[in-house]
């Protein structure tokens, strides 16, 4: 049975392609994003409270490494196969090394509706994965130049809405603990899936406008957007098994790896690599990879995780 939130995404795409007047006001899209980011952060924070931080260190480190490596794989492909300008290749690579919170939310909903559990500190890994690819992307575009304004970039990353709310939610959840959050659950937990449905409706509309941009930017982005996702998913799943994650957790990590950023990274690249064309990276990320992951990728990655687990898992 198909999850209705996916149908909301398809409704958005259909309405967008049909040039419907349907539109979520920008402020409502903002509101809905804020709720999702806080929900994910709060849920993760509550779980963090339950486990010793030390135990997470290896996972955090491994995931950081993955975030540093994936753009290094993507960059030469984009630069030499895709023949993109250096700045564009670096920027797209950074998008794919980082993660998409929207995709994460859909995957979490998928796991929930299939009764699959996963390591609940996953939001911590989500936050951590957002950042290293940005640094690598900037270095790929610029080299190790003295005049790089790293202070500005750091501010842009941490002061951006996304990380602020995820981290804020994590800390609040961690401090407040499970009982503390109970009175907040009607808004942040019970409404989660409905809010996600609205979010996906608008994402469908946005993706539709990106899909029509694909005509101009050629089929390479389509191939790259899908190919890179699949490759990253395999890396993520492999890492998940190596770290001893559950099948659900492995699939979540594969999804994180496969997803491409469309909020934190574009904002950071605009500041630090402004000569990169944001249309290219957003078309790939929103027009190809997001729909692919939401419609096809997530179940695939779960299936894959199950197989790898039964082959190599404990």
């Amino acid at each position: 049975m198909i999850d209705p939130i996916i149908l909301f995404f398809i409704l958005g795409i259909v309405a967008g392609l049909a040039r419907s007047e349907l539109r979520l006001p920008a402020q409502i899209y903002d509101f809905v994003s804020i709720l999702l980011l806080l929900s994910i952060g709060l849920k993760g924070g509550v779980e963090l409270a339950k486990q010793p931080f030390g135990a997470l260190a290896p996972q955090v480190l491994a995931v950081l490494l993955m975030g540093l490596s994936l753009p290094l794989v993507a960059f030469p492909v984009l630069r030499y196969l895709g023949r993109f300008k250096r700045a564009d290749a670096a920027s797209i690579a950074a998008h794919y090394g980082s993660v998409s919170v929207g995709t994460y939310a859909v995957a979490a909903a998928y796991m929930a509706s299939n009764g699959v559990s996963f390591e609940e500190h996953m939001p911590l890994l989500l936050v951590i994965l957002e950042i290293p690819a940005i640094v690598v992307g900037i270095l790929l575009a610029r080299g190790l130049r003295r005049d790089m304004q790293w202070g500005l970039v750091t501010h842009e990353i941490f002061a951006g809405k996304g990380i602020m709310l995820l981290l804020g939610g994590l800390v609040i959840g961690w401090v407040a603990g499970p009982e503390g959050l109970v009175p907040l659950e009607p808004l942040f937990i019970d409404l989660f899936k409905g809010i996600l449905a609205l979010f996906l409706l608008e994402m469908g509309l946005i993706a539709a406008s990106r899909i029509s941009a694909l005509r101009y930017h050629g089929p390479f982005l389509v191939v790259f957007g899908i190919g890179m996702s699949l490759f990253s998913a395999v890396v993520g799943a492999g890492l998940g098994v190596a770290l001893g994650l559950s099948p659900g957790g492995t699939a979540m990590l594969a999804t994180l790896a496969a997803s491409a950023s469309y909020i934190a990274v574009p904002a950071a690249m605009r500041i630090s690599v402004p000569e990169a064309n944001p249309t290219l990276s957003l078309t790939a990320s929103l027009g190809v990879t997001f729909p692919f992951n939401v419609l096809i990728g997530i179940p695939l990655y779960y299936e894959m995780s199950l197989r790898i687990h039964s082959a190599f898992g404990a």
Partner: protein
Amino acid sequence: MNDNNTRTLLTIITEASLEGRLLPELEKLGAQGYTITDARGKGSRGARDADWDADSNIRIEVICSRAIAEAITARLQEKYYDNFAMIIFSHDVSVLRPEKF
């Protein structure tokens, strides 16, 4: 409304994400104030529909002397024109209390 009351109204239309960086620059170059409205539009860098943050424009108006207007224009052109969706235009306006601007 004689000439002494004339100032330049400079209008900048650009990406919303630049707001935080542009405003301090305007002030450093001598602008005594500014007004911002949210906008959307289309230009040489494609459609910017304001569906979400990354796709939104702002419209900044600055009333100032011609000299400051030219300084702002030159600075923004040099620093942002190549890489950002941005247009700048200006014309004369009559103002009250010209010493304010």
